[in-house]
């Protein structure tokens, strides 16, 4: 009956292991809830928000509270789920809220042909700061408000560019 004795020995260890696992699980839950609903860090890269955000990649802190209370305003840098590819998030600036009239140049490299739109109800107009290298509302149209998932607060990496984004 030696295996019975082994089983009893392991029972104590198993109980302790379970307790530790449950502590880790609770901690992960807390991290998850904070990350998704309060504040999170995101790595953003690409040329579309130059010179505000770097080409090679920045880590920014984004909060996920404002968009739930309708507190996204003109000029905010927001994290939006791409309307063309739902698995991607894009970072752009809000340049128009519902009801606003906007004029933009169809192709900033060529000529001055200007198009005027009114942002429909329930939508926002997002544009990258780098008009020459940004796929944004000028390409895919105004974006429904609910696709906004966060508002950028400040940049935390690289350290020499630490600070608020404007």
């Amino acid at each position, binding site marked *: 009956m030696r295996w019975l004795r082994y089983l009893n020995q392991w029972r104590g260890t198993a109980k302790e292991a379970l307790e530790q696992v449950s502590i880790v699980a609770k901690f992960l839950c807390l991290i998850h809830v904070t990350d998704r609903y309060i504040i999170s860090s995101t790595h953003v890269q690409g040329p579309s928000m130059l010179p505000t955000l770097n080409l090679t990649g920045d880590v920014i802190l984004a909060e996920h509270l404002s968009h739930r209370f309708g507190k996204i305003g003109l000029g905010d840098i927001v994290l939006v*789920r*791409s*309307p063309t*590819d739902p698995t991607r998030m894009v970072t752009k600036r809000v340049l128009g809220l519902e009801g606003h009239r906007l004029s933009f140049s169809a192709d900033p490299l060529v000529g001055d042909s200007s198009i005027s739109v009114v942002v429909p109800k*329930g939508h926002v107009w997002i544009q990258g700061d780098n008009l020459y290298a940004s796929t944004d509302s000028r390409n895919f149209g105004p974006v429904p408000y*609910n696709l906004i998932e966060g508002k950028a607060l400040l940049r935390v990496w690289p350290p020499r560019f630490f600070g608020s984004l404007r």
Partner: protein
Amino acid sequence: MASSFWNIAYQQAMRSGVFVAKVYSFLHVTTNYLAFPAYAFGPSMIPTLHPSGNVVLAERISKPSRGDVVVFQSPEDPNKLPTKRVVGLEGDSVSFVVGPGKNDESRTIVVPKGHVWVEGDYIQNSRDSRIFGPVPYGLIQGRVLWRVWPFQDFGPIGPPTTT
């Protein structure tokens, strides 16, 4: 001895608080990643759903495909959650009558990448993609599986019943 009364009361409160937090976390994880109930009302999904109101169970696991009834955030009003049927996926060519009952003029649209085309089962009284355009995938909240209430109509929500 008065202080120990408050100690016990405080401990009880903390224990209840922790229990409530655990229940809430469990519910939150379930409704956000697995399935959630939704209340659907209005004439746009007759005969699949009752106009006077249904409670349905919607799941967030599968990717919506043609013919599914989905709950999504309205592109017109971010606070509304309409329930409609997916009639076209990205790349599909959908034809629809611009004003049913008024004339027969029809239009054909190719559903853009990353979007779906939704229509109510009761075309004559439905605000859907024919009015607000294709809906981005990111706005879809879940696929309707089952009707839970009214009880006499408990059962799966399936393909449109041809009247």
